[in-house]
């Protein structure tokens, strides 16, 4: 764990620490916060704290950028709402857009790039037609990539809107179809929270399960610090609103086969942003990867990160399929 990454996590946990930071600390913290897409969260978290003038200006810049990004995200949600108006099935927002639209604390300070939505799998053909008619276009023309997404992944190949240049990711399951775990996407859609305006998002327990699945069961922990901060914020707010939330969460996690991951995410989030709970060696290894950026925003610990890269692929696909996939990718250069 680099000192600078730990400093950033420490500031998110306890903004009062701000008074102890040197100029060099601030320089490094802001660099990492930008690289991890956490500078908006940091700006929100440090509101009202006494910080050096130069830092205040950088944080103001982040707020300006954030306001723009969130307006854009809301507009993309509105565009999707119109595209699926009258479709007869719910369009469930995922990740950052969902947090913002649901008015959750995890949405404050959250930068959003793409629009992620979850649809029932049997509605994919209809969804594809609607999106293409409304001006979205395929990004990848490559036949293998297209086949790879459709055959094995949990989402359609990415689409970009030709006029607005914004990307939409259409998910139909939670993890790749080849993944050894299969969270119950049908249940997530069925039990989602539908709003009056036609937009939907996951219910609180599923929202956590989805965030955890993406952080710990899929991918190589890239952007992990931000995802873990999301999870921490979500857990805190849901537990505050419902003292029995953990019971609901665990029963939902069991249904999706994610119990171990949800417990691990809770431990990691609590260690980093909460009560400083001690961690076992395996958790510490995850933390080392999540906190691997140095004060220049560069990723360090190449061996740890490579191990997580391999782990991500092994989780995603059976070995022979993985070899075939990597071979085709390598041959294509």
């Amino acid at each position, binding site marked *: 764990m680099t000192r600078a990454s730990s400093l950033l996590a420490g500031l998110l946990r306890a903004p009062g620490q701000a008074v102890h930071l040197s*100029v060099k600390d*601030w*320089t490094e913290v*802001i*660099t990492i916060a*930008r*690289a991890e897409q956490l500078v908006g969260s940091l700006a929100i978290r440090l509101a009202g704290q006494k910080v*050096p003038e*130069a*830092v205040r*200006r*950088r944080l*103001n*810049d*982040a707020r*300006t*950028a954030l*306001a*723009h990004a969130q*307006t854009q995200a809301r507009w993309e949600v509105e565009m999707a709402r119109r595209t699926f108006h009258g479709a007869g099935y719910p369009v469930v927002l995922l990740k950052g857009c969902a947090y913002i639209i649901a008015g959750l604390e995890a949405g404050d300070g959250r930068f959003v790039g793409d629009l992620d939505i979850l649809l029932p799998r049997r509605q994919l053909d209809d969804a594809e037609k609607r999106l293409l008619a409304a001006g979205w276009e395929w990004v990848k023309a490559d036949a293998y990539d297209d086949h790879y997404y459709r055959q094995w992944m949990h989402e359609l190949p990415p689409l970009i809107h030709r006029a607005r240049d914004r990307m939409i990711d259409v998910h139909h399951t939670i993890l790749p179809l080849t993944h050894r775990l299969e969270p119950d996407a049908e249940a997530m859609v069925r039990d989602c929270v539908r709003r009056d305006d036609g937009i939907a998002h996951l219910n609180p327990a599923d929202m956590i399960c989805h965030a955890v699945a993406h952080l710990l069961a899929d991918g190589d922990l890239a952007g992990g610090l931000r995802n873990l901060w999301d999870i921490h914020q979500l857990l805190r707010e849901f537990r505050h609103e419902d003292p029995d939330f953990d019971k609901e969460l665990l029963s939902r996690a069991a249904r999706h086969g994610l119990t171990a991951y949800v417990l691990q995410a809770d431990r990691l989030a609590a260690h980093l942003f909460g009560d400083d709970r001690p961690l076992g060696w395996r958790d510490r290894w995850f933390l080392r990867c999540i906190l691997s950026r140095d004060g*220049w*925003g*560069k990723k*360090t610990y*190449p061996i740890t990160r490579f191990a997580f890269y391999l782990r991500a692929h092994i989780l995603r696909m059976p070995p022979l399929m993985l070899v075939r996939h990597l071979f085709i990718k390598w041959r294509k250069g």
Partner: protein
Amino acid sequence: MARMKHQIHLRIGPIMFRIGSVWAGPVKLLNRLYQAYPRPAVAVPDFTVRLEPSSPLRRWIRPNIDIRGDFMLPEAMPLPLAHGILAAEMAMNLQMALGQRRYLLLHASMVERDGKALIMTGLSGAGKSTLSAQLGERGWRFMGDEFALIDPNTGHAHGFPRAISLKNEAVEVMQALIGASDRFGPLLTGTPKGAIRHLMPGPDAVERMDEPARPALLLFPRFGHPPAIRPIGAAEVFMRLTQSSTNYITLGEAGFRALTQLVHQVPARAIDYNDTASAIALVEQTWAELA
């Protein structure tokens, strides 16, 4: 892993950079070209820039530089190490273009006289950079050849007087004007933009770089046409400036207010020219009439 063993902190106008490099060469050259600039080592920079190889092997074998930093473009092409100073310049520009939120950014060159700013913008190759360098040697204060920074609160223009990036024919033109001088950097050939040579701006450009100026004239120069001054409507000025601004949209309402105010208050002309002498004459003429 390649560490940022070499580094330099630089302030250009109101903007502070921290530049780290795996190699000594680029930082040494930056130190020479920017010797007159403030070095705010004890300040939190606006932007961090990293000059590092595109892959570990490329540190040693056919070394190349990837342009990285706080703000990055995924498809940016690496440059050979020999063009390190250009990589540093492009990396700083990129931070400004993608990350600047405090000022409305116009892709323009700028010079000042009597506290008033002349802002020149146009397509690449219109000659705005060369023109500002020329005027900087003729009694004007050079304020920048890449970006004009408009403060949305005051409407004032702040300079960004980086080392001037002379391209192709402009290199010889300026060498003829200034003569042999240690103000020139090395000649870089075969860059994506052709031949490039950097020129340190004159001493007053750096000494007075903290002085903003009131925008007084907007010019849209065009090279390769018989000399002419043409009026240009407010709506067209507005449209052209939105196109030349990298952060107009991101600034939202503040950007719109700053830009409309600029267009309403500052006279604008398009000028055509076919050589340096005609360009200077047209600038002086429009300035005398309008500024």
